């Protein structure tokens, strides 16, 4: 920019590229291992390319290969079915995102566009909940979900996050505040009620921030581990993150099925990577802009 090519600039570029490689290499290594034959892997740990390239590991964790095939390639032979966990993750993340974003938008509308006594105090109270560390509320929430008989059900996993998060309300309120009041008043004069203003005006006008929030919520929900670990251990509701933990602890100590494990992690990570590639610009720009998240 200001100065012509200098030694410092070249060094700076080299440093930046090294950091970039450090960031991306583990992703390549995941793929390289997942495409390898696990029995051959140990003999060739330094090979930069897949060892005896095969899709066996993917077939194994998706439950598509027979026990003999799996064991021949170094799998444990125990039945794993990541299709099921993939479905569970989809169900949990989708319902959580839709409910949380919609209900938070309703609340944000009440805090941003409506005038009522005590509004700012109630909003401050909602925000104060950000201060409480999750583990503190997690213990009593677990007791509650257990007493309701919702352990090992989708409802138990989804409920605590389905209604709101302080961050989501805060985030949307900021955008709703920016919409001009004239438009709203014009609609009012035309006889529109609050429901029509909310659905017909505020939501369409805030489509971009709502989409950003939905993507971020989806990713967070997909990646969550602690809560589903506590309330969703059983196979029929087990999500991918929990399943990965189980898969890792089941793998034999002597010769772990690294290829299978990496294939499984890739299955868990890929949907988020694709989502990210599709919305990279939006997600990247939202960081720093919305600040804390």
């Amino acid at each position, binding site marked *: 920019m200001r100065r012509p090519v200098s030694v410092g600039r070249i060094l700076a570029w080299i440093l*930046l590229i090294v950091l970039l490689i450090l960031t991306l290499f*583990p992703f390549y290594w995941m793929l390289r291992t997942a495409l390898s034959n696990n029995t051959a892997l140990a003999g060739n740990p330094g090979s930069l390319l897949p060892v005896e390239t095969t899709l066996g590991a993917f077939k194994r964790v998706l439950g598509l290969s027979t026990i003999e095939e799996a064991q021949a390639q170094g799998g444990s032979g125990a039945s794993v079915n990541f299709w099921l966990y993939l479905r569970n993750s989809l169900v949990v993340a989708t319902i959580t995102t839709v409910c949380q974003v919609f209900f938070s938008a*309703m609340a944000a509308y009440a805090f941003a566009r409506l005038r009522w006594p005590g509004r700012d105090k109630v909003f401050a109270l909602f925000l104060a909940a950000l201060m409480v560390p999750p583990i503190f509320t997690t213990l009593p929430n677990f007791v509650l979900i257990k007493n309701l008989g919702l352990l090992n059900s989708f409802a138990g996993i989804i409920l605590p996050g389905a209604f709101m998060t302080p961050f989501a309300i805060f985030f949307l309120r900021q955008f709703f505040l920016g919409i001009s009041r004239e438009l709203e008043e014009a609609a009012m004069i035309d006889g529109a009620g609050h429901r029509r203003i909310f659905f017909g005006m505020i939501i369409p006008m805030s489509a971009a921030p709502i989409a950003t929030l939905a993507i971020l919520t989806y990713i967070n929900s*997909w990646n969550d*581990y602690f809560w589903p670990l506590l309330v969703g251990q059983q196979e029929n509701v087990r999500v991918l993150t929990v399943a990965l933990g189980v898969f890792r602890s089941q793998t034999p100590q002597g010769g772990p099925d690294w290829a299978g494990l990496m294939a499984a992690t890739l299955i868990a990570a890929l949907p988020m990577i694709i989502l990210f590639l599709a919305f990279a610009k939006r997600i990247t720009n939202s960081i720093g802009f919305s600040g804390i998240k």
Partner: protein
Amino acid sequence: MTAVTNAPPEKRSHGDQAPPKPRRRLGDLKVAMVFLIPATIGFVVFYIWPTLRGAYLSFTEYSLLEAPKFNGLDNYERMIHDSFFWNALGVTLEYVAINIGVQTVLAVAIAMLMYRLTKSITFRAAILLPYLVANVVVALVWYWMLDFQVGIVNQGLTWIGVDPVAFFGDSHWAIPTVAGINVWRHMGYTALLVFAGLQTIPTYVYEAAEVDGASELKTFWRITLPLLRPVLVMVLVVTMIGSFQIFDTIAVTTQGGPINSTRVIYYYIFERAFTRFDFGYASAMAMVLFAILAIVSLLQLRLLRAKESDLA
């Protein structure tokens, strides 16, 4: 940090200038209540109520099987004599110190490099990628890459003539390893926050420094860093609070071992509550963690005078 660009807060008084009629004073209260129903249910049931209940449980003995029995300050007294608790606190502090220290330095470095070299969105997206992958996935990938016998990192060390390191198996290495893994996951994200902060510094300050002949380093220490302080404080508060809550990585790799060297406070609370069903004691420890986090954030905001900017 919370620099939202296009949302000026509306400075309208609640009742406008209209004479105080009772209907006007309540404003849109009825509609607002309808719109707030779902959020309020969630807030009361899953935030307020558990916070109060958690505080109460910390003064009880509770095994989940029978009703909680009030036992005053017993849990807190027990904590003072519990060497595992103190060990957990120590391990957590070590983790936070390494994690936040390395991460902040790297994030500022990356942000500076990006600011000076490239504003490419592709680059920023690439550096953010690890943050979007689950902790569990990140932990497992590094668990494999850092494996003692066949991990690629130890292969690399062997190639350059260094003895392999038992990253997860050696009690001195375990916490720095876990801290490093999470630095890898979060440094790009933190760098983007710092990068956003850098962009708020007006260019004329740099131009003035250049006219005065200030060196690159001097400009960084005397101008960039002081002007970046408010952003850095917020970044530190947020990342540090997150850092204290390290759990996922440890749960899928070391599970507190070897020899208690990675049993961080979150993991210890989890163990007490869900493998020993000692909910009262676990709640008391969660209460202490809550207090520590509150004190840490307040101290940081105070010490670093977060709200004042030097650009006045």
